[in-house]
């Protein structure tokens, strides 16, 4: 279940969008015990100036992203677009499931939930 995709309008700055991963929808619900799903989120939005320069609450802007956005504003070409809107901070989840030998397994996975997005 995702937020509707946004276009390149003024309201479409790079930020975290909601994405709920349902294990039932991907067909894993028979062997995944818990959780049934999780809020994984995703990043979407434009990274042109000034959107590429996030406020003090956001992730630190890479110098490369600023100059990339500046270069793109000065000379927009198809080959070198604006910086990419990508995950800047992620967090882990744990998954409880049955393996093929019917053992109960608890596995810890890093980088499963997007907490913060940034222009990179």
């Amino acid at each position, binding site marked *: 279940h995702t937020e509707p995709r946004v276009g390149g309008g003024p309201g479409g700055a790079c930020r975290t969008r909601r994405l709920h991963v349902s294990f039932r929808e991907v067909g894993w619900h028979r062997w995944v015990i818990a959780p049934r799903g999780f809020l994984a989120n995703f990043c979407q939005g434009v990274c042109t100036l000034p959107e590429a320069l996030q406020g003090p609450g956001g992730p630190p802007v890479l110098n490369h992203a600023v100059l990339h956005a500046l270069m793109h504003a000065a000379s927009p070409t198809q080959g070198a677009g604006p910086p990419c809107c990508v995950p800047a901070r992620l967090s882990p989840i744990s998954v409880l499931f049955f393996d093929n030998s019917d053992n109960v397994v608890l596995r810890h996975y890093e*980088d499963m939930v997007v907490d913060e997005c940034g222009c990179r």
Partner: protein
Amino acid sequence: TRAPAPSGPAAAALFQALGMHEVPRGVPTPRPVPPVMWRLFRRRDPREARAGYPLRPCHVEELGVAGNIVRHIPDSGLFSRPPGPTRTSGLCPKWTVTFDLKGVGPAEHPTRARLELRLEAEHEDTHGWELSVALLAEVEHPGPELLRMPVAPGLPVRADLLGAAVATNASMPRTLRLALALHRGATTVCARLAEASLLLVTLDARLCPPPRLRR
């Protein structure tokens, strides 16, 4: 229209990326989830972690060891045993327990291997027994005794096998077979092995976050 979930080589690559070396067959035999596994799962939930005590990555707090994969492996030979405590010439019965370790990946290193047993006796007023554990090789003869420990009636039995039956720095065997024997001592009654399982914690360093480098 919804596209079907990836299958075949695409699914295998996807599961390999998630650190699983085989595609789940999808329809497990239903069995209750052991309480210890629920407890460990809830303990890892960031919403239930206590404020000010952040979860350490690649560490199983409740068991006090490094690790990112915990398995509860039931004894696969449980139903081949006689239901009651059979005695042979005055001795308590001996049992063979078998644990299927095929799901353990080659990159996983064990950090805890705990044998858990539940013994049931007809009379709880015994003085307890002594349990001995030996590794059972391909031939049916048990190897040298790995450990011997006192066992109290009515209490769960927990024996640490790491370093004894499970090597710390070697790859895991595909199957672990153990010979268990109960020694009566001064007690006159024997017990029945009602349940046997292995709680295995492993660490796959590839799934741990890399240390942050200073620029």
